[in-house]
């Protein structure tokens, strides 16, 4: 239950900015996703918070305690936080219980209490009874949960997760999503997790910080980022959708010469984001030609080419023939700012 405040934090490797001028406040008990494409600086940002890297400039505070600044950097072991690595980083020379007990040992806590707290932490991740297992004998999801238990065991207020689900298969991933949500509810810790998978971020986080090229693109709730992306980068990264050119005026927005229902503000030529679920096929409306049709099970993801040459994505219940001419209406669009 700690506020994490980053103020104008930058991190350079050589001349290359991995993180540039990031200012964010992560409220008490929030569950924040750091989202962005590969190489955008997510891991670096997490490592700055954990204290494994020192910012080139800017400050990091936990509540009112300065953790890193121009002249000072609190060592990672003094920051009292828990971190789960993408590789899980379980120590192969210790069994499950010893891995989980390690942070308590490092704090010099008594044997009896350690035992009890380890049992509690393993219970929380549904691994009671695995104490004596070698970590090499665990499946990916089990390892992940041991790593989680190790970071929960101290009752820390800050939990950092680096791509916690990246190595798990689809079904395990869904199960772990539930566990994370559950842990968050039960501990109330301030959780930060790194992911490049937008669906993970949407499903899990209550706040998303979207990064690109080391800079914050947008901060907000999942719904905000999905419905009202702050720029084309965010719009392109989160959810499926098409970005189309349109004309905005005070009395409405025109796309392909037809009025559409567009949220947001803008004037003159603008870009609008159209989500597949906002597109309906019809007998009239904007004309297009089927360019591609891909089966997804529930429906067919169809891509149309519009008269302007732009492409538009929508879901159709049936396979459409490539090249077929169709018409569509757009129920909802978002004028991308800037």
């Amino acid at each position: 239950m700690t506020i994490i405040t980053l103020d104008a934090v930058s991190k350079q490797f050589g001349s290359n900015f991995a993180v540039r001028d990031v200012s964010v406040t992560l409220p008490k008990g929030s569950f924040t996703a750091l989202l962005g494409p590969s190489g955008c600086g997510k891991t670096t940002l997490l490592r700055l918070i954990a204290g494994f890297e020192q910012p080139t400039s800017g400050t990091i505070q936990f509540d009112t305690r300065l953790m890193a600044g121009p002249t000072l950097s609190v060592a990672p072991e003094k920051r009292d936080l828990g971190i789960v690595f993408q590789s899980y980083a379980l120590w192969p020379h210790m069994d499950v219980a010893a891995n989980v007990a390690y942070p308590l040992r490092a704090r010099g806590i008594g044997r009896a209490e350690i035992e009890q707290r380890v049992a509690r932490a393993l219970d929380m991740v549904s691994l009671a009874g695995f104490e004596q297992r070698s970590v090499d004998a665990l499946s990916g999801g089990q390892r992940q949960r041991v790593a989680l238990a190790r970071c929960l065991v101290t009752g820390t207020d800050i939990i950092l997760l680096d791509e916690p689900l990246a190595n798990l298969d689809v079904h395990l991933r869904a199960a772990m999503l539930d566990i994370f949500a559950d842990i968050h509810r039960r501990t109330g810790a301030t959780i930060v997790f790194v992911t490049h998978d937008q669906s993970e971020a949407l499903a899990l986080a209550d706040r998303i910080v979207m990064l690109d090229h080391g800079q914050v693109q947008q901060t907000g709730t999942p719904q905000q980022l999905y419905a009202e992306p702050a720029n084309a980068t965010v719009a392109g990264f989160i959810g499926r959708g098409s970005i189309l050119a349109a004309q905005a005026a005070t009395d409405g927005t025109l796309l392909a010469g037809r009025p559409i229902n567009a949220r947001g503000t803008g004037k003159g030529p603008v870009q609008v984001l159209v989500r597949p679920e906002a597109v309906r096929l019809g007998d009239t409306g904007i004309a297009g030609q089927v360019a591609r049709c891909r089966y997804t099970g529930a429906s067919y993801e169809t891509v149309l080419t519009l008269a302007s040459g732009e492409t538009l994505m929508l879901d159709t219940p049936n396979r459409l023939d490539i090249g077929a001419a169709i018409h569509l209406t757009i129920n909802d669009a978002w004028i991308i700012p800037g």
Partner: protein
Amino acid sequence: MLPAVLVLFAVGVLAVLPLGRLVTAALVHDGVFDATLLIQRLARGATQRAILNTLDTSFFGALLALAIGAPFAFLIALTDMPWRRMQGFLLLLPLMIAPQVTALAWMHLLGPSSALLGALGMAPPPGTANPLLGRGGIIALFGVQHAPIVFITLRAGLALVPRDYVEAARSAGSGPLAVVWRIILPLLRPYLIAAVALAFVSGVGNFGIPALLGMPQNYLTLATLIYQQLASNGPAVLPQVAVLSLLIGVIALVGVGVQVAALRGGGFAMGRGMPVRFGLGRWRWPLAMGGLAVIGFMLFLPLVALVATSLVPAYGVPLSLSTLTGDNYVEVLVRQASTARAFFNSGYLSLLAAALLAVLAVPMALGLARLRPGLRQVTNGALELPYALPGIVLAIACILLFLRPLPLLGSLYATPWIILVAYLMRFAALALKPVDVALAQIPPNLLEAAAASGAGPLRRLVTIAAPLVAPASAAGALLVFMSAFNELTVSALLWSSRNETLGVILFSLEEAGLSTQAAAIAVVTVGVVVVLLLVLDRLGRRLPAGTLPWR
């Protein structure tokens, strides 16, 4: 199938043949198995003492090597200590310098006539025995000589410890020292055991150091006992010597076995990842200075003493401006044609051995990988034996084997080629090890992709496997070259007219009491080695990382 057969054949020629010949000499008399000689030998006090001394000095020498090598491995591999690379480079030098030269240098440093201590007024008074003589000195120099082995082995292990393991421990609340103690050391345990075992085996097979430091006091190890037996009784005792060689072989095998088991059984699958790097903060410079001081003491002081000795006209003459002379260098380098020849001979024989082994290592390692695990272990062990045995033993085996003319080749004896063959036998393990490791690290997919592309086994070997492990085989070749260039004991019995090696020259000068000339040769050899290493270091910038042990 075929590669496996070829490998077994190669191992047979390189390892089993010479050793088998020795075993026959030791245990088969007049065509029947007969262990009485072995039992008689074991019953002797001298043999038992030598076994004890061998175990004692090798074990404590290995521990000392660990004590010296491990801190350096940690500092160089894990921290941001300044001048890491240079220190790593310098730390390897003791391995590249012949043990005899090391011993010589230290004796010259610490004896009553030490030019260096004399100049400081700290030399022991005349009549004081050299403090290095005896058990303590042998252990100390084993420690120095084999510290690089520990260093290299541990560094290889440390490079595998992923950063995540360390960072997980730090965010769990452990400071750097606790992390080293509770995470890195346990993870490194197999490498620690392997390093100690390797240093131990090197000690068991070492002749130069106990020869110079132990024999004067009749403190004999098995290696020097063999030498003394041969020297005093001549070849009449060949069977006896073979028996002693077997004993060394058994001890060495145990060491090798421990090492293999350590790296296999206890080995943890460590994920690849970014290497660990601790910030030392304000300790950076003090630690760098401390490291340099230790290296200076281990390496430079004795070398300077050696240089000082090489600059006086006769051993025991104090070094001063008036006694300073280059005569020893002129004598050995210009007047004695044999020295120049020896440089040439050692040079091309080592180079050939290195090149041949580098080329052979790749198919051998590939073939080894195809053997059944059990057979593979045995084969590896067999290959290490000629390296672990004292060179003089191997030399005798070679004489026994190659004296009679071979079909096609004729007699190798009294030609330089017998030395080459002995080098190939002795150093095959050195060349094979890095290639074996590198090959294991090549994803099998790379070879499978070539097969799917239509490339047959030979083409895969030449176009894929060989280039990929080239850095490793180059590193192995480098080790072979250095070792062969510095080697004294193998060629001691195998050289013939005009085929003398550097070691032979150095040894006979020392034996003739011409310590100053011996020192001059030693200094030149060290110089050549250092220059070579520097050239390699230059080249190393273009080689893939990890090719050179210090890069």
